[in-house]
């Protein structure tokens, strides 16, 4: 059996030895073995420090020591691991039961016991109730300042947010991971001007990390712009999505007044204003001859294209400029990404006459990394992430070109607070993942290593179900 002390030594040694950027120097066939060792150490650490992880894996008959065959059993589903507070509390509103929520959160963290008041013992200092989720999360961050805990969420458009914590180490690793990918796959440098059609204040993981990472690249604050002037707190995101409301009169107000008002505001005031500001910044960048990164949802990117078209304006930006998106589709938005790309190509071009490239970013709240789309349209997985696809029997597919449920292990970038071993809710075609590598399948962009094939990512809950049984 691996004891806590051994696990701690392994983890410390691992972190000291490995720098994420070094992985690009390692030939792809050699990466899996190195990553497996990192997974072993990371697993041992979390298994001995993280009660929820320990119990989940024990139930699957996995111990502290693992072999490569055990890897699929280490994966927990992103779709439920950090939403499981809803089951435990019996409500999707943690602010109603702050102490139970905090107990749940601590249960899911790999914490070292310190000399100060142990994390679990501080729970009693939280209030009985909070008026909003944001108020609760702020109080938690305040109460656990010494741990450097920051709470992040998923986009929460389902009305049921993933809520998880990162400590300073995890934040630093994530920022490092993002900025390395931005540099490598998007060619981001100091001389870019970054424009985000998103709020500066948000807990949504990807938006937060993209912002942090560009700062890390070295883009000065005066060259970074957020064009949505309002914060996006989790409560507001929930109400606006219209998928989950409070009960009683509060819910009535949310449903009948706030939701319609917020959507009206968004459609008629906030979004048009944000797009207008972005367009003005783009025009300024054109005039200044500065390269830009415009990062926004597909819908907002399309808004920019349409606004420019209505002004009969074709932007001429310096080569190296880039349009990026992390998804963000309204269910009823009538235009597909291809149409949006086409419209953008008409309005946003470089001075050498080419359309400014539009690149997508694939990521999720639980991942401290993102897969950036290259110029060939494929999504590159950072080489320090061990990625595989699972078949219907929850086993790894080991061919270099395989389609299945995407799973990943991020033993180095994932930090020490949460075991970053997940199976996602996405089906994808993975090339050169797992232990399989075929150089003939390397991406046409020239990058070697694992990637997700263009247009192959699909949410599995959108796939057909069989039978006549109802989903109520």
């Amino acid at each position, binding site marked *: 059996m691996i004891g806590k002390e051994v696990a701690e030594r392994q983890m410390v040694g691992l972190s000291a030895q490995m720098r994420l950027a070094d992985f690009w120097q390692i030939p792809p066939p050699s990466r899996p073995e190195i990553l497996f060792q990192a997974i072993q150490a990371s697993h041992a650490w979390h298994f001995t420090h993280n*009660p*929820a992880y320990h*119990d*989940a894996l024990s*139930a*699957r*008959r996995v111990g502290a020591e693992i072999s490569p065959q055990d890897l699929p*059993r280490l994966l*927990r*589903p992103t*779709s*439920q*691991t950090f939403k*499981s507070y809803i*089951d*435990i509390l*019996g409500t999707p509103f943690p602010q109603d039961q702050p102490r139970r929520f905090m107990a*749940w959160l601590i*249960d899911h963290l790999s914490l070292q016991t310190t000399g100060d008041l142990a994390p679990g013992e501080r729970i009693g200092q939280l209030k009985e109730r909070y008026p909003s989720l944001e108020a609760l999360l702020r109080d938690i961050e305040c109460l656990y300042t010494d741990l450097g805990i920051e709470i992040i969420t998923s986009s929460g458009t389902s009305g049921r947010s993933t809520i998880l914590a990162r400590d300073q180490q995890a934040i630093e690793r994530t920022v490092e991971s993002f900025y390395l990918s931005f540099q490598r796959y998007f060619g981001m440098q100091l001389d870019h001007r970054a424009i985000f059609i998103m709020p500066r204040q948000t807990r949504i993981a990807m938006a937060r990390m993209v912002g942090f990472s560009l700062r890390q690249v070295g883009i000065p604050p005066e060259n970074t712009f957020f064009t949505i002037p309002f914060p996006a707190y989790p409560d507001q995101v929930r109400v606006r999505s219209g998928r989950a409301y409070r009960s009683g009169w509060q819910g009535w107000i949310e449903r009948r007044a706030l939701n319609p008002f917020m959507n009206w505001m968004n459609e008629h005031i906030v979004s048009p204003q944000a797009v207008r500001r972005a367009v003005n910044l783009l025009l300024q960048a054109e005039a200044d001859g500065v390269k830009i990164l415009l990062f926004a949802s597909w819908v907002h990117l399309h808004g920019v294209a349409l606004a420019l078209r209505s002004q009969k304006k074709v932007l001429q930006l310096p080569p190296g400029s880039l349009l990026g998106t992390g998804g963000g589709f309204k269910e009823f938005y009538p235009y597909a990404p291809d149409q949006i790309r086409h419209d953008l190509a008409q309005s946003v071009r470089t001075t050498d006459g080419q359309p400014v490239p539009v690149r997508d970013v694939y990521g999720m709240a639980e991942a401290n990394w993102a897969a950036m789309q290259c110029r060939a349209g494929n999504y590159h997985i950072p080489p320090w992430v061990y990625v595989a696809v*699972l*078949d*219907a*029997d*929850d086993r790894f597919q080991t061919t270099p070109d395989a389609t299945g*449920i995407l799973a990943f292990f991020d033993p180095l970038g994932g930090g020490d607070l949460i075991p970053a071993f997940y*199976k996602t809710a996405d089906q994808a075609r993975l090339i050169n993942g797992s232990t399989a590598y075929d150089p003939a399948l390397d991406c046409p962009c020239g990058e070697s290593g694992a990637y997700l094939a263009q247009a192959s990512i699909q949410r599995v809950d959108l796939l057909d179900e*069989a*039978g*006549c*049984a*109802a*989903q*109520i």
Partner: protein
Amino acid sequence: MRRDAPHKFEPDGCAMSIPPIEGFWLPQQVHSNLLTPETEFEERTFANGQPASAQAPGAVTARWPRLNGAQWATLLEALERNRSRPPQGGDFWRRFQAALHHAGRRLANPSDALHQKAIQTLPGYTGYSPAMIRLALRALDLFSLEQLPAALSFVPTWQAMERWQPMPGIPGRARFYPQQPWREIYGWSPILARQPIYKRSAPSQLVIGYGAGNVPGAALLIALLTQAVSLAIATPVIVVRNSRHEPIFSSLVLQAMEEADPDLVCTTALLVWDFEDQALQKDLLSRADLVIAAASDETIADLRGQFDAARRSRPATGQASRFHAHGHKVSFSAIGAEMLTRTEGDPDSGKSKMEIAARLAALDSILWDQNGCLSARVHFVEEGAEGDVDAEAYADCLLDQLRLLSTWLPLGGWQPRRLHERFDRYKNLERAGLAKVFSDYDDEFLVILDRRPLEADAFRQQVNDCQGRVIVVRPVAHRMDIPRRYLRMIPKENLQSLSVAIGEPGQALEDGFLQFAAECGACGVTAIRTVGRGAFPQLAYSWDGWIPRDLIGERPPGYFCTIEFDQPYEQILSTYRLMAIN
């Protein structure tokens, strides 16, 4: 039971390439006249129940013709001409039973070519295990037809709104739940209460059916029920849209019936066409007197819209046309306190009442891997004073029974991933002391005991979780809690069957049970049968609120709930002996 290898449905262990199988059926003479070498065919290929390429291991391809407008007109004319051929009344009934018996015998015989064809194709195409398909092939006789003549002549009166009405010649009772609240006045007046609910309807000339899903036999059920109206009226033309997810089984049965007696099925066609083909849909639906749609709720809403539009567009004939919807449904099991005991229940096998109940309730849940509308999702267990064990002991016993049954009826192509996710989810609840998981990560099923009081949303979510062999055991203090606390949280239109393990030896339907059944019916339950028979609905009883009389008569909107037995314990025992495995 760790899964060492995925199921690959290569019949009898041998990999082979199977030529495309006909996923449609037409009477022989119509087939040869209608289809020419120029006829276009559409093909679909599945392997292990998932869409696949024809080259995939274990792939099975089905095909069906894409008829053009002229071919459709020719088909409908040919079927209409054939309407003079089928016998009627008693002669029909005798020949119909003989033909069905012939088909059942062929399908059940492993050395018969028809059986072999079914076993070679159905597992790969649908994803259900070969053992499950073999069971279905052997079970054709379980769809008992003997009671159908009595069911068709059953004339319920408005008294059925107030109390359970016996059905002459058939065990059990029927009760009617009208959708129009003002109909209650029929209950106040003894004269009105004796009025029949149905009024005479002109015989159907054309019945259009829609079958969906991958549980074999939806299209067959529609075809057989509508053919059976020949007991009372002339056989209509019957055109059923087969499911692209399972077009094989119904075609094989009709093929066998035709061999035995071609006149019986000469007005029936089983085809696949697109719901989106608006011209064809409008043409068919405007001609139809009766539409029977077994499909998803979304498809049914769409079909009903098309049907209403088509009906408005056709010239007024004074003849009503009817639409029978069979949408997405959920079913449950109820285990009474009297069965929650270790006392001997079957003198032959020495098994306890609890073992018998658990075995049969397990069967109701695992047949068709819980993908069927009849599959029991939650087992409500009554922890009353009568039982000498609690729900935990029942869950333990259920676990043993599931382990036994799973070796006999292995899980098909359903993804263990979903089982694993639910296992993780409930293990998480177990850590918080909110539920208890009885099965292991590697079991091909999941058994959970959950005592949490749940709000409606959470209960519905739990019911949704129960697919692919996920069974939640939910204790109740009294059986009346089942309708009062739980079933009322399910939308009425989504409720279907309740399989019960209730009753003492020799006990008939007593008032307490009838009150319980009435409250379940009021919640939307349309069929109450004993455990073990969940997946074998009897055609004489209510199917989603429609009874056989609905095929030949008209009535106000509402639904029937039927109890399918008189002496529950005796029926449970006979089912147990039928299903006995060691």
